[in-house]
């Protein structure tokens, strides 16, 4: 298929369709409304269902019901709306159902603002709702990568029967780039014998549930989940390393911030500073090994985020004291400039590297 020029938010919708998703339940919120708008046009054309729910709470519970029937289903929102969805997300994780939840982040806390932000990292990577669970969190940095990760996300969700979050920011959702959707896929090859679609001659009824009143039983369930999370951690990490091989200063950043960081690194290289970028693509599981491999020559790591410093904790945990880690962030919807990141790289290079 040839490339088409599309907006990030719309690409999420089209990529979901190309992955066999025919059901979307959502509620409008800036800056992701182009996605539900797009699907409200597209899904009826192909025999799918777009339904605008009465709230984010209802939307995620519709997703829960739909996912329980074994279909590919998606919802999307932005930060305050994602907070409302946490109840349902916890039930979906506890009941081990597959789905995709999109968070196009805006500034917070509270009503915050509508400009791009990365301040929901903690919420996304630490489960977000109540209970011991994890979402698989994918962070695209381009419109093409949105298309690739939405498709991969549906497969991961079904492979592990676990909710997947696509975590982007308002900038990524709003920008246009060329995209190739590749071949169409579906969830047909995955086992759906657990789905609640009516017994249809089955002897035993299927039950989708997260209630285990006996502590002995809940512990067994929690341990089963743990086993799954450990498997995901060992198999599914993804990251990109840019000019890190000889880099003394490695900038750790994800999503759009990583793209800006690449420009900053190019500026540094022109000045003779050996710098590189480490970009995690999976935020959970965090690519610990990949980060350590990308920093073998490093003297220091600079984490850059559009937050007060959230992913920096995972960077520190991954490096486990091996290297000094510093942080630079912009917040409230302000975006770090390549120049500002470059200045930070230069400062750190003088402090830790000292080699020109």
């Amino acid at each position: 298929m040839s490339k088409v020029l599309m907006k990030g938010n719309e690409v999420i919708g089209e990529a979901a369709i190309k992955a066999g998703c025919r059901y979307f339940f959502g509620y409008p919120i800036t800056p992701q409304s182009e996605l539900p708008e797009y699907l409200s046009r597209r899904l009826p054309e192909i025999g799918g269902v777009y339904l605008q729910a009465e709230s984010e709470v209802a939307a995620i519970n519709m997703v829960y019901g739909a996912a329980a029937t074994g279909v590919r289903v998606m919802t999307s929102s932005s930060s305050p709306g994602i907070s409302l969805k946490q109840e349902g997300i916890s039930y979906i994780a506890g009941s081990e159902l597959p789905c995709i939840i999109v968070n196009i982040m805006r500034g917070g806390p509270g009503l915050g603002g509508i400009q791009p932000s990365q301040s929901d990292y903690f919420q996304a990577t630490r489960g977000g709702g109540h209970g011991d669970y994890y979402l698989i969190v994918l962070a695209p940095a381009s419109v093409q990568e949105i298309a690739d990760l939405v498709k991969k996300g549906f497969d991961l969700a079904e492979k592990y029967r676990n909710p997947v979050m696509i975590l982007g920011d308002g900038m990524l959702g709003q920008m246009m780039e060329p995209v190739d959707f590749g071949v169409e896929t579906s969830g047909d090859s995955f086992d759906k014998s657990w789905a609640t679609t009516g017994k249809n001659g089955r002897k035993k009824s299927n039950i989708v549930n997260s209630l285990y009143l006996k502590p002995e039983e809940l512990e067994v369930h929690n341990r089963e989940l743990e086993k799954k999370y450990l498997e995901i951690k060992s198999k599914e990490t993804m990251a990109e390393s840019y000019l890190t091989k000889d880099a003394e200063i490695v900038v750790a950043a994800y999503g759009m911030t990583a793209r800006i960081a690449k420009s900053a690194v190019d500026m540094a290289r022109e000045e003779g500073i050996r710098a590189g970028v480490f970009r995690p693509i999976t935020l959970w599981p965090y690519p610990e090994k990949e980060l350590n491999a990308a920093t073998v020559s490093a003297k220091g790591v600079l984490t850059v985020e559009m937050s007060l410093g959230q992913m920096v904790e995972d960077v520190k945990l991954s490096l486990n004291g091996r290297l000094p880690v510093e942080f630079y962030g912009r917040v409230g919807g302000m975006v770090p400039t390549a120049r500002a990141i470059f200045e930070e790289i230069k400062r750190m290079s003088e402090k830790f590297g000292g080699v020109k």
Partner: protein
Amino acid sequence: MAVVFDRPKSLTDAKFHYCPGCHHGIIHRLVAEVLDELGLQDRTVGIAPVGCAVFAYDYFDVDCIEAAHGRAPAVATGVKRTRPDTIVFSYQGDGDLASIGMAEIVHAAARSENITVIFVNNAIYGMTGGQMAPTTLIGQKTTTSPLGRKSELTGYPIKVCELLATLPGATYLARTSVHDPKNVRQTKEAIKKAFQLQVEGKGFSLVEVLSACPTNWHMKPVQALDFIKNDMMNYFPLGQFKSPEEAK
């Protein structure tokens, strides 16, 4: 020996955990009898609530989904919209449906979701131990209205059928009771009609069943029947509040 009375196929052989004099058992049985009689067991998906009927999935021998408190109509919507051939019902109590789940039930009715809602109104939170519900009567004592419910503090009990009847999307709304055999039969008829309408694709149906909670009302089961008859039915009149003929 000839069998004259048996368990409906749509119920499992699990023993109900309900208290003596509680009406959930009767209402479960009525739903199961209707599913059997209409031949729907194999294509039914039940949505269990949070509340005393939380284990409904252990009792109904149909595919079931356990919903979060109040969200059953949204979960039911997710099932019905993706699998229109299934028969979907939610089974909800008064705290679940008329308090925390008010938005979900109103909008499911407004959209005329083609689902059936069994709404068990016993004017109290049973599972959590007898707290005030949105349908608790004025003057009724509960653990969180120890001196009796006062309208100055907590307003008035919500009449769900009357409220939903204002929505064009609601197809069939009826309030019944199970305090005596005649009313049990009428409740079954209403439940049957509600499921039949879903089979015909007619849209949203809800049967509100007045039901006893002797444990949390602190009454003997027989006294509790009188409370339904004399007190609850006085405030929550029985009847049909919307028929398919008047709908839209």
